[in-house]
């Protein structure tokens, strides 16, 4: 498809003020809150195996989030951030991609990473900053990344990954390998200048990128109503001459289908797409947060009724692809795996102190060698003060 040109501007001699909400963007939904399918809805082409993989990943993430939140409370890890209630958004979208597509996350998309094949052990290694962590223990918990799985390492500064996704997708387009980049971000991060930069550039350069906004209603304590005055994030696409889809982020089938269509547009027609997935952050922002200070139990309860995993399970059961008992059993085995991996990862030491200077550059510059030698001499001098590393400094 050639870039769709803006229509020729009409001239009017009557002063026309365009109203604040000039586009009407409906929300795509296949499964109703109760797990039944909308009458007449055309479901995506999804087989049992795929559906069960998606479901199992949802269960795993729910379990992981629950256990690791608790582990933080027990002081076993320093920080955790749960994706409770948003599992459908990340897993449904990841499932619609090809493995070769790049995923860039914000930080609440552990579901996408698990779907790609990140093992429970890999999760744990990162969460415990141990020497087996692919990120070498350098970033806070939940800052996962894995080149082998085409999942870009998370970085805390919000929004920075959005123009990076445009650039990454530009490279993919140049390479001709028919892949795309999907980038996640919250409705809060969409306020950053980098959002504007990234979407506009993607539209101008016609790159195969999918901008996936998880609109979960909050940015820490700030409700969406204080984040923007517009009708969510989707209508911004129009400002960039970009296509948009709004989808029920708690309906994994709808998310899957919407992302499939976005991927088709991105890769086959080089038109980036903005997806806005409507959801709700059911937990606190992170283990550092307590949402009772800024929202009501009532509101939370309303959203519990729209919960994505139960909804999907109902549909699977109705399909005859799983039973409630089997689902429960599966959950129990996820639990076992998580607990076992947790105990194991906890015992693995932090990276060797030599790693403190690697990867600043491709090879350490001279001053880093000096600083490391000084540091090691110092550690030898005061081994008790640096218990995590001193044993291995000879």
């Amino acid at each position, binding site marked *: 498809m050639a870039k769709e040109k803006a229509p020729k501007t009409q001239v009017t001699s009557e002063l026309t003020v365009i109203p604040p909400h000039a586009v009407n963007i409906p929300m795509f939904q296949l499964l109703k809150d109760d797990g039944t399918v909308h009458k007449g809805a055309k479901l995506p082409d999804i087989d049992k195996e795929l559906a069960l993989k998606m479901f199992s990943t949802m269960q795993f993430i729910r379990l992981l989030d629950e256990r690791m939140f608790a582990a933080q409370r027990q002081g076993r890890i320093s920080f955790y951030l749960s994706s409770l209630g948003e599992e459908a958004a990340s897993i449904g979208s990841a499932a619609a991609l090809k493995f070769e597509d790049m995923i860039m996350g914000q930080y609440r998309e552990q579901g996408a990473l698990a779907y790609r094949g990140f093992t429970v052990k890999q999760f744990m290694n990162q969460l415990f900053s141990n020497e087996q962590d692919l990120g070498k*223990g350098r970033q806070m918990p939940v800052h996962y990344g894995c080149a082998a799985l085409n999942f870009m390492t998370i970085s805390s500064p919000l929004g920075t990954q959005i123009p990076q996704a445009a650039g990454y997708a530009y490279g993919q387009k140049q390479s001709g390998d028919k892949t795309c980049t999907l980038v996640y971000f919250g409705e*809060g991060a969409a306020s*950053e200048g980098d959002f504007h930069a990234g979407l506009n550039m993607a539209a101008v350069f016609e790159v195969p990128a999918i901008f996936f906004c998880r609109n979960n209603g909050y940015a*820490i304590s700030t409700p969406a109503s204080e984040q923007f005055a517009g009708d969510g994030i989707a209508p911004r696409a129009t400002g960039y001459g970009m296509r948009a889809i709004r989808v029920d982020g708690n309906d994994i089938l709808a998310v899957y289908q919407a992302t499939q269509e976005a991927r088709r547009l991105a890769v086959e027609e080089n038109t980036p797409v903005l997806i806005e997935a409507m959801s709700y952050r059911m937990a606190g922002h992170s283990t550092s947060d307590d949402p009772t*200070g800024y929202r009501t139990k009532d509101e939370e309860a309303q959203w519990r009724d729209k919960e994505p995993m139960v909804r999907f399970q109902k549909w699977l059961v109705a399909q005859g692809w799983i039973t409630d008992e089997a689902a429960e059993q599966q959950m129990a085995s996820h639990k076992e795996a998580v607990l076992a991996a947790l105990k194991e990862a906890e015992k693995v030491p932090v990276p060797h102190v030599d790693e403190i200077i690697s990867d600043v550059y491709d090879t350490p510059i001279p001053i*880093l060698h000096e600083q490391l030698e000084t540091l090691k001499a110092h*550690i030898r001098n005061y081994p008790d003060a640096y218990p995590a590393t001193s044993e291995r400094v000879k």
Partner: protein
Amino acid sequence: MAKMNLLQAINSALDVAMAKNDKVSVFGEDVGHFGGVFRATSGLQEKYGRARCFNTPLVEQGIIGFANGLAAQGSLPVAEIQFGDYIFPAFDQIVNETAKFRYRSGNEFNVGGLTIRTPYGGGIHGGHYHSQSPEAYFAHTPGLKIVVPRNPYQAKGLLLSAIFDPNPVLFLEPKRLYRAAVGEVPEEEYTLPLGKAEVVQEGSDVTLVGWGAQIEVIERAVALAEKDGVSVEIVDLRSIQPWDADTVAESVMKTGRLVISQEAPHTMAFGSEVAATIQERCFLYLESPIMRASGLDTPYPLAHEKEYFSDHLKTYEAIKRSLNY
């Protein structure tokens, strides 16, 4: 007087300022009803209304851009950047706009009413992006004042000075001490001077210079040195811009030795300016080279935080190197 931790002292300063002058407003991400992720603005929306204490959208360049405009209009905005690590999207608004507003206009306009508050520093398991000490990035910017308190008493007195100072001030709060540092703080208004260092402790063998949370580290190092019989003079800069070279030089002319202890990565941390200036001003008095204990020249790591950190032991070793040169 009341016992306050550093956060309470900040909160009290904001409260006093808002009560005193209704042109003072405070805003930033989560600053409104919630009172900020560290709760520094807690209770202020209830007390002064949503128009004067409010959440902003999540956009640091916008927060400071907006604050610049509001200050130019004649208000006294106190803008919060949630973490010092997230101040960089606002770098252009601060360095190219805030700092140059008055000069470029020939004093037709100014944003002197602006104060930017942000927590800085490590030691809280924050890794790359919740640990940085960005003062040096801003210290090369004429037009800006930069202030770093070390305890609750300073925090309140310096923040009140910053808010009412007719120049834009970047106010860096040592988040490690938010709850850890507790002290006596007057409940009413008082101010401490900007641009003036404080001699925390007098001594004769060596001068130790630091600022903010690092003073606590220095004090622990000095305790070790004192056991060795060394007499240390401790100077807390309090202001990074303008910084009080006179007080430091005077001290060094007395002790003949200078050690700087700082949290940020070594190269081009603010201690470089202190060393460069003092070697020029005190050349004939220096008995050994000026030593710097700093963070490593790496991003701030998580698992190796202790190893990275310019702690009291590294500072103590620097003191010894200075004395035994």
